[in-house]
């Protein structure tokens, strides 16, 4: 019995099965539910760790199941897949702890945690997909699993946000399906291959391939919130904080960005795509999205909304790194997949803490909050500095490699985008930090909960501290083996570019 062939499937099942059991639990079975959640998360973590070690040593983890005539369900743990899987697994564990604390005493928790587990299952499936059809299946599954989380509050506002989300993602999914099926009718295979599988196609398919590329990027761009397909994301912040955190850092938005990486490198191949002339428009689009998102963020008073526009901007760094089409920029883009996740989840956790503990939802209410909740705001500060790109937080590494990569590829306009975006990031984060640390706090907070001597509940405070520490570590220890940066270099060498 070859266990290596089953581990990717087990990784997916380790959140799917607990999720399905959780659906059947009564509302008051808190301990069992928590136990199942943590058991799933820890099992997944152990399995991913095992795969990590194996892949580093050249093992091959691959599950293949027949799905359709000539098409298989393939789950494969390549280096790129592992990067995303580890991110999701670690952040799932943290977010689960956070969600347990956050939702204490609120209704429909079994439903929430059930869909929460399904959501992670889908994300991990997206990460491990070894061909386009498997990717498509989990990508659509992710849409469906996220919807109930998004509308969890059940308000009219949530229902409308969910509606918008579905309109965007369903149409995006249809475009992606069309592109995938079309591609399949041309090539007869959908297997992700390092450096793409299209190079055998002749010149006569050039126009078709350009349209397919546009279809697929549009389908993925909806989730990655590329302008002008981003309309659903700012509305989606009505979801509970742990959902927003997961949505912005790991699950939906990242699945879109990750899909773009896959399509460019493992379907089209970066050289082939450059030959088609589609990379430059993609880079321009990403650059525009970066600036546009930052500009919009500047004018939001609602904290979560500001963070949402910030996500639109930050996720496009990944796309930009891919679209510059050089090895160094690729490292920057791919590593930002992890870095942005760590930093953004920290910020959303903190925003959730402010809302839960003090009832603060708006930036203008944050005066002096640093003294009331020093730990939370310390984590927030690290996240914000990371977003701005200040060393030594992880964001700096991403921007450095993006900039170097752009120079190497001779696309110096990217530097302007990076500089402009950093300035804008500073412009919308620094006033928050200033207000929180240096302004006088008001007489009373909008809606204060009492947590005794602690600033807030442990389950709410620990997760942002952990993720902030990770973000800091990813920057400080970037040159150690197994850091995200080193792993991204390994990916770039092994999968994308011939050494």
């Amino acid at each position: 019995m070859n266990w290596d062939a089953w581990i990717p499937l087990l990784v997916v099942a380790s959140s799917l099965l607990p999720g399905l059991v959780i659906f059947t639990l009564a509302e008051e079975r808190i301990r069992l539910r928590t136990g199942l959640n943590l058991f799933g998360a820890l099992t997944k973590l152990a399995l991913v760790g095992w795969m990590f070690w194996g892949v580093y040593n050249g093992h091959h983890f691959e599950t293949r199941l027949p799905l359709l005539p000539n098409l298989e369900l393939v789950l494969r743990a390549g280096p790129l897949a592992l990067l995303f899987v580890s991110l999701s697994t670690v952040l799932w564990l943290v977010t689960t702890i956070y969600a347990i604390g956050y939702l204490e005493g609120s209704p429909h928790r079994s439903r929430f945690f059930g869909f929460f587990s399904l959501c992670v299952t889908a994300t991990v499936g997206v990460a491990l997909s070894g061909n386009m059809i498997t990717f498509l299946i989990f990508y659509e599954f992710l849409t469906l699993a996220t919807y109930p989380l998004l509308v969890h509050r059940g308000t009219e506002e949530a229902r409308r946000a969910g509606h918008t989300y579905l309109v965007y993602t369903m149409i995006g999914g249809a475009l992606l399906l069309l592109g995938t099926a079309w591609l399949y009718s041309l090539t007869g295979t959908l297997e992700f291959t390092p450096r793409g599988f299209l190079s055998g196609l002749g010149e006569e398919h050039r126009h078709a391939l350009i349209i397919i590329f546009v279809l697929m990027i549009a389908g993925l761009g909806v989730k990655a919130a590329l302008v002008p397909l981003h309309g659903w994301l700012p509305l989606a912040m009505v979801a509970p904080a742990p959902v927003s955190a997961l949505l912005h850092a790991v699950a939906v938005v990242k699945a879109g960005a990750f899909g773009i990486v896959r399509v460019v490198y493992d379907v089209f191949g970066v050289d082939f795509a450059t030959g088609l002339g589609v990379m430059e428009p993609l880079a321009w689009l990403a650059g525009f999205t970066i600036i546009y998102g930052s500009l919009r963020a500047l004018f939001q008073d609602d904290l979560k909304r500001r963070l949402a526009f910030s996500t639109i901007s930050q996720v496009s760094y990944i796309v930009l790194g891919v679209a510059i089409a050089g090895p160094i920029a690729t490292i920057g883009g791919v590593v930002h997949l992890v870095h942005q996740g760590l930093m953004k989840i920290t910020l959303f956790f903190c925003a959730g803490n402010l809302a839960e503990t003090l009832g603060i939802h708006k930036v203008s209410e944050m005066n002096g909050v640093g003294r009331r909740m020093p730990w939370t705001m310390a984590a927030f500060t690290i996240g914000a500095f990371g977003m701005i790109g200040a060393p030594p937080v992880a964001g700096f590494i991403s921007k450095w490699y993006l900039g170097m990569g752009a120079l190497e590829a001779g696309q110096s306009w990217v530097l302007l985008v990076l500089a402009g975006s950093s300035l804008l990031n500073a412009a919308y984060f620094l006033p928050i930090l200033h207000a929180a640390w240096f302004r006088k706090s008001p007489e009373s907070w909008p809606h204060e909960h009492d947590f005794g001597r602690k600033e807030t509940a442990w389950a709410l405070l620990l997760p942002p501290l952990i993720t902030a520490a990770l973000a800091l570590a990813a920057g400080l220890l970037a040159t150690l083996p197994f850091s995200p940066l080193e792993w991204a270099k390994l990916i770039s060498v092994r999968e994308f570019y011939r050494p």
Partner: protein
Amino acid sequence: MLQAVIADSHWAIILILLPLAAAVLCFLYARAANIIGVMTLSALVLSVAALGWQIRETGVYHHAIGGWEAPLGIGLYADGLSLLMLTITAVAGLGISIYATSYFKQQDAARFWPLWLLLLASLNALYLSADIFNLYITLELVGLAAVALAALTGGRDALAGAMRYLLATLLGSLAYLLGVALLYHGFGSVDIAILATQAEPVPVLWVAFGLMGAGLALKMALVPLHFWLPATHASAAAPVSALLSALVIKGAFYILLRLWLEIFAPHSGGAETLLGLLGSAAVIWGSLQALRQTRLKLLIAYSTVAQLGYLFIAFPLSTMAGAAVWSAAGYLALSHALAKAAMFLAAGNLMRFGGHDRIADLDRVVQRLPLTAGAFALAGVSIIGLPPSGGFVGKWLLLEAALTQGRWELVVVIILGSLLAAAYVFKVLGRAFTQAPVCQKARAVPARMEWAALLLACGAILLGFLAPFILPLMDIGDPFSASGVQP
């Protein structure tokens, strides 16, 4: 020993006689009807499995009743396509039957079971018939039993709907019978295999096909002949709606497909283009109508009109890639049967609980029946064609064929139909999470009814993973090869 028994028994005959005998028993012993019914259905599922094993091992099943061969006697015939339809009937039928045991009160149950078992026997006979006259007889029996079932609850709406249905089904059968007469007159036989060899492109063949096609299209409610379906399917009792939408309509499709494959395809003269056009119209029009409805059961009924359109889209595609496209259509029919049955049963639960099916007021109901909401959601996933589900497999195969052949208009229809389906499914599901004040008067829904709907829906999802096992079974005896790849 066991293998020998399975291989040598005449499962096809059992499939017809068993429900017939059970129908009589249910009529005689009305008190035990529920038990007899469910046991019969369980036995049928096993028999179909046995038949499947038999024809997989020994090839196509052919039996001449009483030893009289084709031109004189009655023949039974079972290949992969028959097996598919029998499976749909038995599996979806079992789910609906379990539901029905809790749904009907004693008095209604006494009338429901004999009719349903009679319908079942007729459907099974239809899928096993080898000649077009027997197909007519069984088609007529199916139609009449279905009409009686539709009128079962006896309300004003139900009676009006059943009356419309009666007219439509009689008219359809009549047109079909005229076609049979013409074929018999023209080629001297009603046996499908003989007709297949004798048929020539002469006017009588075209007229016969026109009549039979129109009659069957009327029974399948192909746009623009769908006028009767929404009212009938929406006004019947929930298990009956499920039977009508999931199973009865497939009977007419089976006949059309069989005739097409064996007799008409080589001499079609462009009829497939017309069928494809009407199918596309059905997908778009039916989905748009479904989206406009304010009542849940009407929405589901219009969704049936739309989803059946997909089966007709297979006709124009089949001229280039026969087997693959018909497998897709068969798979769609299979998943639609499970999903649509689950949807109607879920709707029945919601109606039982809240006493109405107004979509705008459903939120109070949906939240308190999580299993039912789950059933509707999973069935919806398959109807939309989202992965992983049977609907996705079918639509993917269809899409693949359309793309390979460069039929862009069909590609657009397939995708657009899915998007519209998503719109009308989520129009209902959007209510599942809103916070509405809980309504006071509510009737409890038995767990069995909730689980029956949920399990059928899970079946539709599970089909998304079973394609590698089911598709080869469908190909036993090459039922799709008649219109195979033509140069």
